């Protein structure tokens, strides 16, 4: 089975670990534990044409400013999931900075954008209008939730599709 490395990137406490836990184990972590270094999980997915792929999912510690070490973790990645937190508008700006750093220092690889925690309705700072204003109207940002599972599967599946097209 062919394998692909993908990274989950974003500012701290945007829910990256929870998204991976939902995708790999279909579980949700109710308490916040900051990730230090990197945690790698794997899940097998079957493409529409029946081919199977193993995804090595790198849950990289959150950072607002990408360091040399942060970029080293990305080496060999076929794609990445960029995560912002719907309850903290500044995490979208951090996500855009991370993407700019990744694009400037590494070869172009596919990515998918996800605004997490949309289930926390009363604390929303990133509605679709604000996302469009901050990130640009042409940007596609999925809106999802690790807590409810909304759009989690779709985000990873979409990333895999893009990686396969780019391969």
């Amino acid at each position, binding site marked *: 089975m062919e*394998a*692909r490395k993908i990274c989950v990137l974003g500012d701290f406490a945007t829910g990256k670990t929870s998204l991976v836990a939902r995708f790999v184990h279909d579980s949700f972590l109710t308490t916040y534990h*900051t990730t230090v*270094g*990197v945690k790698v999980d794997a899940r097998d997915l079957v493409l529409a044409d029946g081919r199977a792929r193993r995804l*090595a999912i*790198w849950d990289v510690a959150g950072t607002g400013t990408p360091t040399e070490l942060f970029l080293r973790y990305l*080496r060999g990645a076929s794609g990445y999931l960029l995560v912002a937190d719907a309850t903290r508008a500044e995490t979208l700006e951090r996500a855009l900075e991370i993407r700019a750093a990744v694009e400037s220092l590494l070869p172009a690889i596919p990515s998918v954008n996800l605004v997490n925690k949309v289930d926390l309705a009363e604390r929303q700072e990133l509605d679709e209008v604000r996302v469009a204003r901050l990130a640009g109207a042409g940007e596609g940002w999925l809106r999802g939730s690790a807590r409810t599972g909304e759009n989690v599967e779709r985000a990873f599946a979409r990333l895999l599709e893009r990686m396969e097209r780019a391969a």
Partner: protein
Amino acid sequence: MKDSFVTACHLRRILADQLRPCFVVLDQGFGVLQISGDAASYGYGGLNPGMDCREQMPFLIGLAAGEAIHLPMVETASGSAADVLLTPTGSDQGLLLTDASRERAARRLAQQDANEARLLLKEQQKLLESLRAARDDLDATSQRAAEASLMKSRFIAGLSHEFRTPLAAILSHVALLADVSRDGELSPAESAQLIESNANHLLSLVETVLDRASLDMGQLSLHPVPMRLSAFCREMQVMFQPLAAAQGLEFRFHRRGDLQEWIEIDATRLRQVVINLIGNAIKYTDRGFVALILSWERGSLEVAVSDTGPGVSEAARERIFFPFQRADHAANKRGAGLGLAISAQLVELMGGKLKLEDRPGGGSVFGFTIPAPNIDAAAPVAASVSGLERRILLVDDSDDIRGLYSRLLAKAGFTVDTAADEPEAWGRFEAQRPDIAIVDVYLKEWEGTGLVRRLRGRGFTGGIVSWSASSLREDRQRAFDAGADAFVLKPVEISVLCATLTDIARRRAAAA
């Protein structure tokens, strides 16, 4: 020599205990060739030569064979953390794992505290922002309340002036009438006419203020009754033609489309709105004409009042429908500044919307459309009951009201008996056996609605009119709940009272 060997062995043991190194020799395809060290402590105890190392160590996926890379603090299968060093060794690759759990634990503790502190700071900022927003809202609300209070104070000051003017006129003419030795210019009849005119103006002011209060409290409700459109048109013409002529204006009336003879509508409120609109138009028009245009189509009555006055400026349009606001040119005109606001609310209550448009050629057009179903059977029924039910028992605790209305009703052809309270009312009731009872909602020491209820309880099947100076919906509702057929506001024009009595008789005849 032996000592240094022992020391080296000791140091190696300490290093091995702390770093727990695990060394794996891999081929170029990441196949395991050789394993040494503590693989089990990282959760890789099942790793054996010949296996693809990436099956158990997914962090190797994506890495190219032969490249050197150092990956600090990678979580392993056992949950511990390892520093991973992959390096080419001739034709093979060497993979070294050393324990980084302690360093990760220490860094996690510091990082967790720092991240939580930043999240807490963010929450505090949000809380502060919401508190600021709440304070701003509160300030804005206070300002609006202060403005409303100021507006009401101005209104009360203006209204006091409005009340004083006719009161002064009434008092001066009463003094004139009382002065038997006068050789003045006005006859007693002229003085009486002026007193009546000023008293009517006072009454209209009071009614306006009470209407506004009732609308504010949501207490005003509609009471549709059959209304003859042709009579309404005549009434408006008779009322306003002389007033317009006195100001050198022409009063025009236009009927458009099919004007049904009888419609069902709250005639009192329709009359109130139309009188207000025409009165305003005449008040503010110096030359030209004021026109009333009525049309009826498919259950809707359209009313428009057009004038050749100065029009309403763009800036004033927004506010003239609000209470205590007037157009720029209206500052020196008589009135409470409530008429248009009340009219707009009444039209809304009747199911329409009062609109203002420019009149082509200059002036304004105020208009609205409201539901007004036609009722064909009303006329013959009303005609058939005229002349019936003439004996009236009037119960009111005010001597003046009893005296005034008993004379007016007698003049209208009714036989009237009066009572000041419930015991007296029962005595008169037994003696006279009236056809209709008019009962005040509030009697001294007695509840008028109680008398109505007891009249019904004793089998009185005649018409009952409740009346009161209160325009509150709950008073009206209490009267109807007790068994009244109609409710009217005091003081009521005798023509309206007679129309109410006729309407009750008509309904009772129709129901019989």
